[in-house]
């Protein structure tokens, strides 16, 4: 007597996820990673120390060079997310099974990460002012002396 195999794709653990589901989840995760990279140049004070600690100041400054490409990276990651959502939520075909809960959760988490990256990039879009030193190192010297009662740090670094 033959027993027909179950067609319920939500029977977690009974069989591995179809390749298409894994691919969709991977694309979503890739979109999230791309979004994080896109905003890593201009991240909040919470993440900046981590970047400096891992890459060093010079490495972090190099990462800051990503900023001009941030809109393109975010747009690309949005396309990847859109594709992943379409793959998992498109109308069911004759042989298509419902995507697993884990895959759908991964996509929504990726979408949340993307939105946080966009918010971070928007918040950090404003540039900071800077002064140009003359041959007497002014106005740095004046500022240094004005803060004589404080512990002072002077950093000589390249922005590239």
């Amino acid at each position: 007597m033959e027993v027909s195999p179950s067609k319920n794709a939500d029977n977690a653990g009974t069989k591995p996820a179809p390749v298409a589901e894994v691919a969709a989840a991977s694309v979503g995760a890739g979109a999230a990673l791309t979004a994080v990279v896109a905003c890593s140049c201009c991240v909040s004070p919470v993440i900046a120390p981590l970047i400096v600690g891992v890459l060093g100041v010079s490495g972090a400054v190099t990462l800051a060079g990503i900023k001009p490409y941030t809109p393109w990276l975010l747009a690309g990651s949005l396309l990847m997310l859109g594709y992943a959502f379409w793959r998992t939520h498109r109308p069911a075909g004759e042989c298509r099974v419902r995507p697993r809960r884990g895959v759908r959760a991964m996509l929504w988490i990726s979408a949340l990460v993307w939105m946080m990256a966009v918010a971070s990039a928007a918040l950090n879009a404003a540039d900071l002012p800077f002064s140009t030193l003359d041959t007497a190192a002014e106005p740095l010297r004046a500022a240094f002396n004005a803060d004589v009662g404080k512990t002072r740090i002077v950093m000589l670094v390249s922005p590239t």
Partner: protein
Amino acid sequence: MEKNPSRNLAVYVVWVPELGAQPKHVPDAATLVRDPRARHYWDGDEVVGKAYNGVLGIGRIAWDSYFIFDPGKLWDAGSVPTPDFWMHQMSKVRQAPMLSPKVFAAQVAQRTGAAQPAGVR
């Protein structure tokens, strides 16, 4: 700087034209240090780095260097103040240790009375 909220701390980030850097690169890079206690400068002629070559005796223009100055130290005209502690990321410079963020942060914390960073004795 996020872990050291001391008001007795001032930071001067001096951006220099190394590695092909130009003034247009400063605004983006400056976003790495947004703390209101930090001020940013562009030293296109590396006036400060050249002065520290002589003061520190390193035989090259100083850059990728991080100096700490204790309260009370003044910057006289025509020279640069000797740092009370410094670290760097320059090759073949032995006058000071290579930059360790934890050690540097601990030195700053010690001087400002802030809590020591975790993992540093």
